[in-house]
């Protein structure tokens, strides 16, 4: 694929992620932080987010699977997931955590479980899209082009 085409795809993809609420302004902040001294900053941070989130989601699954659910622990995990997703701008993931915490307070296992599913879903969606984005980036760079800056 030629560079121009790749770049267009990149732009469209990024724009749609923002429009659909998968990403928010915080992600732009990350992009702005990236510079020559740290050219892979966004990729690194997002990878870190993936790792951490998966760990948290596993912990959550395990915690909710217990006979006697430790809601404090669940709440702590959700809180952290909320914090990290908001830090990278994964808006929908962050939003899905809001209700989750409320249900934790109510100690509603069933509802929490449903929330967990929702969070997992959102997480996988955003992960997928971000990976596509990064792939496009790499392709553009490999083809000798430059990454278009999103306004």
């Amino acid at each position, binding site marked *: 694929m030629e560079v121009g085409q790749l770049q267009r795809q990149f732009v469209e993809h990024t724009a749609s992620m923002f429009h659909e609420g998968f990403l928010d302004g915080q992600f732009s902040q990350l992009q702005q932080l990236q510079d020559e001294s740290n050219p892979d900053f966004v990729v690194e941070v997002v990878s870190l987010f993936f790792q951490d989130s998966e760990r948290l989601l596993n912990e959550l699954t395990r915690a909710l699977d217990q006979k006697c659910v430790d809601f404090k622990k669940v709440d702590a995990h959700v809180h952290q997931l909320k*914090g990290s997703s908001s830090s990278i701008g994964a808006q929908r993931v962050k939003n899905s955590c809001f209700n989750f915490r409320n249900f934790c307070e109510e100690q509603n296992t069933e509802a929490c479980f449903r929330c967990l599913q929702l969070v997992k879903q959102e997480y996988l969606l955003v992960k997928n899209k971000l990976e596509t984005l990064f792939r496009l980036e790499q392709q553009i760079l490999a083809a000798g082009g430059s990454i278009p800056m999103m306004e």
Partner: protein
Amino acid sequence: MNFGVQGAKSMSMPSSSASWKSGDGVSDHFPVGLRVLLVDDDPTCLMILEKMLRNCLYEVTKCNRAEIALSLLRENKNGFDIVISDVHMPDMDGFKLLEHVGLEMDLPVIMMSADDSKSVVMNGVTHGACDYLIKPVRIEALRNIWQHVVRKRKHEWKDLEQSGSIEDGDRQQKPSEDADFSSSANEGSWRNSKRRKDEEDQAEERDDSSTLKKPRVVWSVELHQQFVVAVNQLGIDKAVPKKILELMNVPGLTRENVASHLQKYRLYLRRLSGVSQHPGGLNNSFVGPPETPFGSISSLNGLDLQALAATGQLPAQSLATLEAAALGRSTTKSGISMPFMDQRNLFSFENPKLRFRDDQQPQLGNNNKQMNLLHGIPTNMEPKQLANLHQSAQSSFRGMNMQPNSNHHGNQSSSLLVQMSQPPSRPQMFNDTNSNHFSMIPSSIAQPTLPSGMGSGVLARNGIVENARGAIYNSASQASTMVDFSINQNTDLPGNGFLLANNAGGQMATVASKGLLQEEVTSEMKGSRGLAPSYDIFSELHQHKSQDWGLPNVGLTFDASQHSNMRGGLDVPPSVLVQQNNVQNRITPFGKAIFSAAEESGRGNGPNIGQQLDTLLAGNSLRVKAESLPEASCQNTLFHEQYNQEDLMSALLKQQEGVGPVTNEFGFDGYALDNLPV
């Protein structure tokens, strides 16, 4: 903030890490190289924040465990300028870490969390955090964190200044004659600090800024244990630095170190006991009768907490209410925008109230109110108001004065200070207060000089309270030592004292507080961007132009490290003095930076800057005046930026020696008002 941005952007020189020195006299370099310790268990956030901070040209050390952070801090005393910590962490609660840092290292701490619920934020405030950031944190929010460092230093400086200067010229009045023990000591120290300032070039940062090493006492766990044991043996109310020092029997530890630490510890205890009272109730009780005996200053502890709590929560309305209440006593109730006079009255009432540390609720209420007032004031009040408050405080101070001294203002005042948050009008106040203050002070000074000390402390607090955010508290707690110092000093800042008095629950000294306030105001001014510019001060500053610069530095050089050792001679809270030294060295660059920045931006510029400058200058100028005490030379020295730590220390030492006798007579530790002969 403007400064911050300017500074960051204009950084041209490759400041060495952990060093503020500009060398080129470019104040813009500050806050480049600010050494930040970042603590967060979330690796994503940690990485993002680190990058952001690096982009701000700060020097970042990150860790994901609170334990690690603490050990890092303990290993490198003076290795960091500011700590940013998450609230929710698996191994240790962020607030606990905050307290530890406050007690042991006395560094400004910023809390952050994705949790923005009011209770959590309030928690941050009461624990002494100097700011609270909500995640996701934007880089803009991080750019300005240097203000907390400067503010802290400034307060420390102020304390030092106050202690040293007692009262110069205008301010002077009472210091020497009164049991103002800080007078001689203060002057000495003040002079020293001033001298140091003289040497330093205002525009240039300190040469040794990079070191920024203060002869701070590191309160290790063991040492703290010994301290606690000693305090418990004596009984928390009777625990005075001198006796604690004897019991501890640690070579090399000075009474000042103990005093400042005691202040912090008291604050910590207060915090533990919980800020039960809600600020809301304060309003009514606030109007306490001024006739309350000073001696019976109720423990402001409660108040402090409340005040602290109030700080954050005190909305304009409540503040207004408080003010009204306060005023009501004196005159009429009025809204927040009380007229000048009202404000004054308000404070006057507050002073007496503050002083008292009644354990009784009502008094507390009063105090709280006062405190709230203070809190509210900064946030709600216009600078003018503050000034008014100060003035009124001063006037009231006269009457009241020092009575609060009898109480343990040390702690309280400190806490109060926090609340005072920044009244932008401080500078103004000072001007007014100075003249009034001094006159008042002497009369009031009869009591231990605490008032002045308190004033400073209060000021510091106040200054810190600026946004009633954690920031204030942070400074407050840390400033507690400062406050103590202020007490010793008969600081001239009447306004400051006043505010302090209010906050400190009357501990000392409205006078002291005024002094402090002044300091704080100046420091606050820096922070208080929106406050009405203290144009009055500004003009005054101009008068003291040469000296002004010195002040900023001095103020800046407030070293939160209360542990600084001021020689015994200076009863002025040793930490203040010492801090001064330390602070001076460190702050100077900052101060200079700030000033330069301010200068560059033009006084009249950007409201913030101008105001800040004015405030600073005002503070300085005020200070100068105050300091024109017996040691006229102090004034001159005040403003010279380039003072070295060594010089400062020696100067302070000299002062101490000279002051020795004076301070002794008061037996005022600064921390223990009890000791003050009333």
